[in-house]
């Protein structure tokens, strides 16, 4: 909320005049501002969207909305790159620019290819300004569910949600709580704080300005800004001796390998990933592999209801139980390894989880699960 004033400074005057006049309720919950050349100006607020008329009022229909033109787009691009597009070529290649304050601007335009790889973006005609907010206190609800009382730290955790549900906001506040020793749990009062290493590939967690985080991440936090995740995790391990590593949006094979490395080096990992449900998560190859080896002690799912973010913590065992069924089905084509793989997982550090049944969670009963319909269907096909 307090962030939304400076972000308007990014916009060229003519656009700013329009955006300054949007109603207060929309401004307070503003999440996205989407500018598309010669198409209506759109904002996303409180999980809804609306087009903006020239006088700042909102409308559901786009036909009488304010339409930004070529000059607006040019000026906006110039301003978000600090008048230096030449210095942002790498960011253009990746398709987004992070501006000061941690806000991320996604870009769409025409890709210029060089030897088959995206070399540059030109004719940029679509902007998605995502507004970053520090919501201090968000972690207080989630953190107690992630604690590992035996090791007096947190379990390896993966925060999962579709885009736009507050993953980065949550992980930022978790990093802050951990590095300042606010565990939000009576049993953990004397644990002290932990060294946190943040690998901030997209400069979104810390929003570093010349290497110094602009968001409050607590006193014991080291940030590796704009560093590729896999490499960054290794660099952190080698040089900064973190106790907890925080990374955003994992999903590639290298990331998974680096996380393996970190876990076996005795470092706790706190990561986020894009997925809506457990089944999606296990559908992504690198993540599925990571989850199968049973690294993560818990999964946090975020869903949004209006402007309120709900979370649900699922322990590894539970996740296992929910997914082994579907995984068995997919593995059914390759017989034999299914029970082995299923049985190997639940041995993770879940022995004394609160609210967890201690019954060994073997994948066996699943065989008679009512999935005949589905598996039968696939056989028919």
């Amino acid at each position, binding site marked *: 909320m307090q962030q939304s004033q400076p972000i308007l*400074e990014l*916009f*060229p*005057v003519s656009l*700013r005049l329009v955006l300054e006049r949007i109603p207060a309720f929309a401004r307070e919950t503003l999440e996205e501002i989407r500018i598309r050349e010669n198409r209506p100006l759109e904002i996303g607020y409180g999980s809804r969207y609306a087009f903006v008329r020239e006088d700042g009022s909102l409308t559901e229909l786009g036909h009488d909305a304010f339409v930004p033109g070529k000059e607006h787009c*040019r*000026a906006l691009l*110039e*301003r978000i*790159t*600090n*008048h*230096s*597009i*030449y*210095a942002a*070529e790498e960011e253009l290649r990746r398709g987004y620019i992070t501006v*000061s304050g941690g806000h991320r601007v996604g870009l769409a335009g025409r890709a210029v290819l060089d030897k088959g790889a995206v070399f*540059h973006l030109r004719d940029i005609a679509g902007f998605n300004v995502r507004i970053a907010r520090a919501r201090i206190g968000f972690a207080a609800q989630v953190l107690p569910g992630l604690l590992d009382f035996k090791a007096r730290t947190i379990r390896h955790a993966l925060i999962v949600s579709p885009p736009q549900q507050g993953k980065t906001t949550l992980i930022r506040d978790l990093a802050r709580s951990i590095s300042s020793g606010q565990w939000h749990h009576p049993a953990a009062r004397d644990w002290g704080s932990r060294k946190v290493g943040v690998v901030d590939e997209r400069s979104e967690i810390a929003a570093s300005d010349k290497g110094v985080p602009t968001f409050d991440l607590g006193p014991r936090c080291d940030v590796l800004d704009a560093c590729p995740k896999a490499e960054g995790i290794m660099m952190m391990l080698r040089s900064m001796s973190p106790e907890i590593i925080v990374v955003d949006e994992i999903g590639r094979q290298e990331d998974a390998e680096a996380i393996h490395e970190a876990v076996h080096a005795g470092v706790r990992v706190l990561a986020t990933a894009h997925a809506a449900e457990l089944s999606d998560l296990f559908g992504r190859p690198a993540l599925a592999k990571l989850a199968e080896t049973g690294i993560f002690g818990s999964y946090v799912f975020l869903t949004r209801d209006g402007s309120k973010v709900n979370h649900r913590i699922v322990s590894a065992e539970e996740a296992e139980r929910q997914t082994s069924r579907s995984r068995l089905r997919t593995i059914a084509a390759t017989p034999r390894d299914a029970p082995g793989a299923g049985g190997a997982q639940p041995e993770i550090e879940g022995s004394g989880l609160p609210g967890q049944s201690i019954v060994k969670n073997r994948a066996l009963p699943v065989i008679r699960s009512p999935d005949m319909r589905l598996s039968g269907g696939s056989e028919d096909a």
Partner: protein
Amino acid sequence: MLKLVGALLVLIAGTLIGLVQSARYAARPRQIRELLHALQRLETEIGYGQTHLPEALKRISDTAPPPLSLLFSDISRSLSKESAGSGETVRECWERIILARWPETAMKNTEREAILRLGATLGGSGREDQLKHIRLAAIQLQAEEAAAREDQRRYEKLSRSLGMLGAALVVIVMI
């Protein structure tokens, strides 16, 4: 007596006019040269340092001599974050400041056009493209510099002596 004082005044004024004129002829190639140095610096900042434009212009203004340093520091200041409220693009602010400050330099309109054209593209494209534009502006300025040196060689002494001689002529006619 009064006549003598008047004649002396006319003589001094004429000589001064001549000196000022010849100083302008001498200053123009020098300033073009300084501008070329500034462009070269900008090329390095953009090509190798990937410095952001406001910062690059500020560094240039720190090293450039007076009339140019003011020019660049003004542009840098109005592009930097403190004055982000104005929402100006590089082209607008470059144009505004160059047009306002150009009379303070000894350079002529042809140089100004080259610099304005550079300002219209600065910051607005990829690195290679930027370097090309800067080089293009530099080539134009080099041609102007050669012409300016020629002018200087031809007219610097001439205008100096012309000022004094013209004044002398006026004095003779008056007497």
